[in-house]
């Protein structure tokens, strides 16, 4: 497959602990996807996964960079954070597993569904993580071929 240039690229900072702006990056992405004319069900799954990745930085890490590249037939997202990392990825993927502290749970986070939502919604999910350094989440979403122009 020849390397094609993305239609749209976006790079945003995410600040750990900033619950006021949490979700704004994913909202911006949703608007871009809608303007690009992708089908709503496709946008929905990209946005769910994007929101969960964004919130994991806000809740669990110190800071992060969110990068997205939108192509005519796919979306590529990378979220790179400085943070505590994930010591046991398999455990972290279990639904219901969460290390979120009580005051975060009171806000309705920390159900332990974020990573499994990301896995269900993306076509490819890859996580690189180093304890006490940080985590990189890479996700790809492919448009069903019958939807391509």
């Amino acid at each position, binding site marked *: 497959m020849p390397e094609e240039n993305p239609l749209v690229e976006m790079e945003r900072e995410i600040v750990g602990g900033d*619950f006021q702006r949490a979700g704004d990056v994913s909202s911006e992405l949703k608007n871009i996807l809608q303007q690009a004319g992708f089908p709503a069900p496709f946008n*929905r799954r990209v946005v769910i996964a994007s929101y969960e990745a964004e919130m994991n930085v806000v809740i669990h890490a110190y800071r992060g960079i969110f990068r997205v590249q939108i192509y005519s037939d796919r979306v590529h997202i990378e979220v790179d954070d400085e943070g505590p990392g994930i010591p046991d990825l398999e455990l972290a993927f279990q639904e219901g597993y969460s290390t979120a502290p009580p005051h975060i749970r009171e806000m309705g*986070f920390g159900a332990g569904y974020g990573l499994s939502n990301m896995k269900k919604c993306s076509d490819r999910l890859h996580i690189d993580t180093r304890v006490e350094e940080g985590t990189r989440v890479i996700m790809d979403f492919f448009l069903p071929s019958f939807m391509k122009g």
Partner: protein
Amino acid sequence: MGIKIREFVEPLQAEILVRGGMESEEVEGGYCGDLLSDCIAHAEENSVWVTVQSHPNVVAVATLVGIRCIIVTNSQEVQEQTLEKAREQKITLLRTSLSSFETVAILSRLGVPGKKRRVVR
């Protein structure tokens, strides 16, 4: 087949915190829950969301899902930032002293069906 948002106010004895599009807009269904990753995965577009959560991220989730109206139950305090975000996004924000259960029972009587997204894809 939608139900007008403004019809919720009286039966719920709700305070209107942010009007959003309530004069003209309708919802097609409802979702109830206080866990954000549950709501974002399962609520349907054009729904009303019943929750005790009232911080600004609730509006972020509603925006991403395409929820038209949030009903905060049990008279939970609502932060100013939540109101601001709801105004920006033109989402109707109501508050009632009723519990979530009582609220859903009334919405159901008004004809709002429960809607859950069953397939993620």
